[in-house]
C-alpha cells in the first residue's frame, strides 16, 4: 500500500527573521498505513519539530512533506482537518465538557456552520468512544476522568475526526505505567484494525519496542533511522540515540542500562531461567560479572548455585534470600580484594 506521508530530503528547523536554525536534515521517511510508528529520541533532539513539520503546522527549511502524494503546504486548513488529527498533552479548559461533547468536537471538520450533529455524526462519536473503551463514561465530565481516561478521550476525538492519519506527541508522558501500556496497546490495536497510520513520539522505549510496528529513531547526531522495529534495533541504532558512554542499550532486554564499575567475577549455576535472570540482574547491579558455566576456574572465582529464591549457595555458605547472597558476596569480594593487595 502507498505510504500516507513521504518526505524527500526534508530539513526541519526554525526561521528567525533572516537566519535559520537547522534541527534535522536529509530526512527521507515513508509513514505506512495500518501501522503504529514510534518516534524515539532524546529530549530536545527535534522530535516535536519533526512532528509539527509532518503535520504541516511548521514550514520545513528544505524539501517538502507529501500527504497522500500532495504537498501538505498546498492542502487547505479545512481539508487537512479531515486528513490528519492530532493528540497532544496540552492543558485544556475542557473539564466542563462531557466526554460525549469533547469527542463530538472531533466532528467539527465534517459539520456545518453551527456544528449541528446529524445521526451519522452521533454514531461516529459513539463508536469512537466505544473503541477506546470509555463508553461507560460518555456522560461524565472530562474533569472527572483519570489521566489515562482523558488521554483515551483525546484519542477518541481523533478517531471521530475520521482521518487516515493520527499523530500523537508524547501521548503517554504523564500517565502511570498501567495506563501507559494500556494506551500503547490501544493505539497498536487501532492502527491494525482501522488501517489508519498512527505516529507517536515517546520516551517509553520498552513499550515502543514491544508494540510499535515501525521505529523512527533520532540519533544523538540528529540522523534518523527508520524501519521495522526489529530491523532498527538489530542495526544498532538504539545505541546511537544517546551519546553517553555510560548508558548502554541491552539488546537482550530491549532497554537501556547504565554500566556499573566491575568489582569482580563469579560463576552462576542456575537452571531456572526466571531465577537466573533476576540473580544476574542483582549481580550486575553490584558490579559482579557472571562467568557462565566454567567448569575449571581453579577455585579462584566464587561460585553461586541457586535452586530457588530461598536456596542459594555462595561458596558453600547457604543464603535464604537474594539480599543474603549479596551480603555474602560483598564479604568474599572484599576479602579477595584484600588478599590480592597483600
Amino acid at each position, binding site marked *: 500500500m502507498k505510504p500516507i506521508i513521504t518526505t524527500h530530503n526534508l530539513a526541519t528547523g526554525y526561521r528567525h527573521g533572516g537566519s535559520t536554525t537547522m534541527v534535522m536534515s536529509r530526512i527521507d521517511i515513508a509513514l505506512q498505513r495500518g501501522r503504529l510508528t514510534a518516534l524515539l529520541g532524546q529530549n530536545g533532539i527535534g522530535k516535536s519539530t519533526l512532528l509539527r513539520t509532518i*503535520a504541516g*503546522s511548521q514550514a520545513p527549511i528544505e524539501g517538502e512533506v507529501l500527504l497522500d502524494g500532495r504537498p501538505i503546504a498546498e492542502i487547505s*486548513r*479545512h481539508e*487537512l*482537518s*479531515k486528513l*490528519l*488529527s*492530532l493528540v*497532544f498533552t*496540552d*492543558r*485544556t*479548559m*475542557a*473539564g*466542563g*465538557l*462531557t466526554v*460525549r*461533547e*469533547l469527542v*463530538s*468536537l*472531533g466532528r*467539527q*471538520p465534517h*459539520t456545518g*456552520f*453551527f*456544528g*449541528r*450533529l446529524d445521526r451519522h455524526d*452521533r454514531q461516529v*462519536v459513539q463508536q469512537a468512544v466505544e473503541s477506546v473503551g470509555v463508553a461507560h463514561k460518555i*456522560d461524565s*465530565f*472530562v*474533569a*472527572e476522568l483519570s489521566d489515562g481516561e482523558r488521554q483515551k478521550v483525546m484519542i477518541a476525538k481523533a478517531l471521530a*475526526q475520521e482521518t487516515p492519519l493520527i499523530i500523537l506527541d508524547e501521548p503517554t508522558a504523564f500517565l502511570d505505567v498501567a495506563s501507559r501500556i494500556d494506551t500503547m496497546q490501544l493505539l497498536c490495536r487501532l492502527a491494525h484494525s482501522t488501517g489508519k497510520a498512527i505516529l507517536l513520539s515517546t520516551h517509553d522505549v520498552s513499550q515502543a519496542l514491544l508494540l510499535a510496528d515501525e521505529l523512527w529513531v533520532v540519533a544523538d547526531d540528529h540522523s534518523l533511522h527508520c524501519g521495522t522495529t526489529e530491523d532498527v534495533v538489530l542495526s544498532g541504532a538504539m545505541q546511537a540515540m544517546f551519546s553517553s558512554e555510560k548508558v548502554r542499550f541491552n539488546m537482550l532486554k530491549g532497554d537501556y542500562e547504565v554500566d556499573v564499575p566491575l568489582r569482580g567475577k563469579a560463576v552462576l549455576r542456575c537452571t531456572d531461567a526466571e531465577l537466573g535472570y533476576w540473580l544476574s540482574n542483582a549481580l550486575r547491579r553490584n558490579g559482579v560479572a557472571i562467568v557462565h558455566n566454567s567448569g575449571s576456574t581453579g577455585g579462584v572465582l566464587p561460585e553461586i548455585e541457586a535452586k530457588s529464591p530461598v536456596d542459594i549457595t555462595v561458596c558453600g555458605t547457604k543464603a535464604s534470600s537474594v539480599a543474603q547472597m549479596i551480603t555474602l558476596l560483598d564479604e568474599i569480594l572484599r576479602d579477595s580484594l584484600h588478599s590480592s593487595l597483600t
Partner: protein
Amino acid sequence: MTQSITTSHSGKRRFAVAMWLLVAALLLLAAGNLLIGAVDIPAAEVLGILAGHESENYAWQIIVTQTRLPMIVTAALAGAALAVSGLLLQTVFNNPLADPSILGVSTGSGLGVAIVMLAFGGSIGTVFGTTFGGYVSILLGAMLGAAVVLIALLMFSMVVKGATMLLIIGIMVSYLASSAISFLNFFSTESGVHSYVIWGLGNFSGVTARQLPLMAVPLLAALAWAALMVKPLNAMLLGSRYAENLGVNLRRVRNELLIITGVLTAVVTAFCGPIGFIGLVVPHIARLLLRTSNHNRLIPATVLAGMVVALLCNLISVLPTSVGVMPINAITPVIGVPIIIYIILNRKRIFYFN
C-alpha cells in the same frame, strides 16, 4: 441557539430550568427597578404608566418613562455585554480569570474616553455632551482605547505562553493606561476632571431614551455575532493547537472575537463608565448554574445572568439614600469578590477547572 454538540438529557433539563430561573429573576429585578427609587411611586401608577395611561402626576410619568425604563434597558444591555465579553476573553486567552477590566480593556476604553473628555473637555458638557457628535467621539475614543489594549494583549499572548503571566501583563497595561489618565486629569480643567470622575464611578442612569439606540445597536450586533461563534469557541476550549487541527482559522477567529469583545466593552464603558467584575464573575455563575463549558448553552445563560447581575447591582444603587444614586463600581465588587474567592478556593472541586 443551535445545538452544536449532543447534550445529555440531564444537561438539557438543567439548561431549561436554569434559563427559566434566570428569566424569572430578570423579570423580578426589572419590576423592582421600576418600582423602587428615590421617588416613591405607587405600583398601580407604574403599571398604569407602562400600559400607556397618562398619569395625573406628570413627574411620575417622566420618572418612569424617561429615567427608570431607559436605566433598566441600559443596565440589562450593559450586563449582558460585559458578561459575554468576559466569557469570550476567558476562552480566547484560555484563562478563567480573564475579563475586560482585569485585562485592561476597560481601562484602555477609559483612557480613550479621558482623552476625548479631558483633552477636548471644554466642548463637552456634563457627562456626555449634548451633541450627537459628542457621543460619537466618546464612543470612538473608547473603542480605539479598547482596540489598542486588545492588540497589545494579543501580541503579548503570542510571546508569553503562561496564562498567569498574560494576566499580569494585562494588569500592567491597565496601570499604564491609569497613569496616562492621571496625567490627563492633572493637566485638565476642573469641570472636565469632575465629569470624568463621575463617569469613572460607573452608572446605568446616564443614558437617555434618545441615546439608547446608539448604545443598543452596536451591543446587540456584537452579541449576535458572538452567538455565531459557538463552534470555534467550543474548539478553542481544547487550546489553540487542537482548535487549529479541527479546521478553525485561529487568527481570523481570534481577531473576530477580539473585535466583538472590544465593541462590547468599549460601548458599555463609553456609556456607563468602566464597570468591573461583571465580566469576570457572570461566566462563572453561568458555568456553575448549567454545569457546562459548552458555549451553545453558556452564551444564552451568560447573557441572561449578566442582565440579572447588572439589574441587581442597579437596584442596590438606587435604593433610597440621602445622597442619591450610589456608584455601580462600589457595588459590583461586593457581589463579585466573594464569588471569585469562592471559585478560587474550590477550584479543585469545580468541574470545569480540571
